[in-house]
């Protein structure tokens, strides 16, 4: 029947168009020199938004587009050429640099702020201090009861962000593996991988068994922050996270927050990156619970 053949042809046509129009169908490059696209880390998205609003207030003709999605998303967009600036709460990986170079892009790194990762528990938990080694043992599943740490007889419920979060990767490398590249320790399989900071906060507030970690900016008054030490022997080495303890290097789980541009920034991107290191922009960093870069 001719109609059947026609319909078959139509299906084939659809399949072919679906296959061919997949990559690079959108063109992000706006011709306006005052336009800038900034994608990446969810940890940094509030900071990036605050910066953009502040910048636009003093430069009304500029047009900045900010979105989150995660550090990996940001760097992938930079590699694909769909963003001018990528935000990342972790350093770019070597394979990502290779991918970028294959696309003719040389990632240019800026440290724009710093962030302390706070270890948090329920306010009813009597534990106040933990060493990095104890944290590693908790999260890798060697310690399973708060009693082993001098607390109540309660099971430990480990909370973590999802594996795609830069915070998760940082915690894995610097806390679970204690910064040792050869160490292949993994999170215990019963670690709860929660989709957002809000869910971690809810569980910490309600569940006396829980322990979690998150950026200092996400910690609220109804959670208890643990003092952390890199070595377990010295009692004075247990430090609470704060801008001061991050900047003098005494708080052990702090990390840099990055922005990446494709090659050395030029034109409007350069103007924006220079502004980010101004005292005005770095003030916003403090207001949002992050730690500013001290340039003096």
């Amino acid at each position: 029947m001719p109609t059947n053949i026609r319909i078959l042809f139509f299906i084939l046509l659809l399949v072919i168009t679906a296959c061919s129009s997949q990559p690079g169908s959108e063109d992000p490059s706006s011709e306006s020199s005052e336009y800038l696209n900034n994608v990446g880390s969810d940890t940094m998205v509030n900071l990036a938004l605050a910066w953009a609003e502040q910048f636009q207030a003093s430069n009304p003709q500029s047009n900045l587009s900010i979105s989150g999605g995660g550090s990996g998303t940001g760097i992938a967009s930079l590699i694909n050429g769909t963003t001018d600036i990528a935000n990342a709460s972790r350093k770019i990986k070597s394979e990502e640099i290779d991918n970028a170079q294959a696309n003719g892009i040389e990632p240019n790194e800026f440290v724009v702020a710093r962030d302390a990762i706070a270890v948090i528990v329920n306010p009813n938990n009597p534990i106040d201090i933990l060493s990095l080694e104890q944290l590693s043992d908790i999260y890798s599943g060697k310690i399973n009861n708060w009693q082993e740490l001098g607390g109540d007889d309660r099971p430990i419920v480990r909370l973590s962000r999802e594996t795609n979060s830069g915070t998760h990767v940082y915690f894995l490398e610097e806390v679970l593996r204690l910064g040792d590249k050869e160490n292949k320790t993994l999170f215990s399989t019963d670690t709860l991988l929660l989709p957002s900071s809000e869910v971690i906060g809810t569980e910490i507030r309600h569940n006396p068994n829980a322990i979690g970690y998150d950026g200092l900016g996400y910690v609220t008054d109804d959670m208890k922050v643990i003092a952390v030490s890199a070595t377990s022997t010295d009692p004075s080495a247990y430090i609470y996270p704060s801008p001061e303890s991050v900047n003098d290097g005494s708080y052990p789980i702090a990390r840099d927050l990055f922005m990446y541009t494709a090659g050395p920034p030029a034109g409007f991107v350069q103007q924006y990156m220079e502004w980010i290191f101004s005292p005005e922009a770095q003030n916003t960093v403090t207001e949002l619970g992050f730690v500013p870069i001290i340039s003096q």
Partner: protein
Amino acid sequence: MQKSRIDPEIFITWLIKITGYSAIVFVFLIFYFLLSEGIPAIREVSFSEFFQQRWYPIEDYFGLLPLLVGSVIVTVGALIIAVPLGLLTAIYIAEVASPRTKEILKPLVELLGGFPSVVLGFLGLLILSQYLREIFALPTGLSALTGALILAGIALPAIVSISEDALDTVPRSYRDASLALGATEWQTIWWVTLPAAKSGVLTAIMLGIGRAIGETMVVLMVTGNAPMMPQGLATFINPTRTMTATIAAEMGEVANGSTHYHVLFFIGIVLFIIALIVNVSASTFVFRRKKRSDRILS
């Protein structure tokens, strides 16, 4: 006048034809896309790696077993709760309740089906999981049990509403005949009405399974997302991670074309195959039943 009467006729016929065929086209397109993105995973990851007990994609652990177990546990748990509850509710509404009660109950059940699942997930996270933790003295309320309970709530309206419709279509004469033979009301319901409505009831349960296994948002919020291997009966109260939640949580950030990306699509294929098996086995079951009851009736 006559001409204008014929034109819309042709137009409508074509419109219906196109919509009918488009459903098939879309299924094929989706299937093609799934295959083209998911099949490379088999080449990049050896088959034995899929049967590992660990899912940790950022370090190249691609064991699918914990995810498969998670999906099955949560879905089976939801059905254990929803099927008896749904069937009994449907029987009550269709067979026992007075017409006035029925008029109130049925829209209420359908209203429950209209709730966005994310709202139920939020309730599960903030209220249900906290109560369950306290009542059963669990380490955490974010567990397979919480997920199963909320999913049961999501599957329930479909099961109740469709089985009730099926029970409603059983001819009055069946019940009259049974009652006239001296059967009690319960015997009539259990041995006559329910078997006569079997295919409809089974469709209802299948739709319930479909909603439960395909649900993403709720399980992402309340099951804790820990990819654990089963540990006996405790599996039901442990945190768990389902296939749908894994795709939803990880697809957003995965690098396009990477092994992890292909494996996520491969999980999509596995889900597709499970749905297919459920549907095919259900329809063969319904088909066989129909033939037999037809024989008895003729």
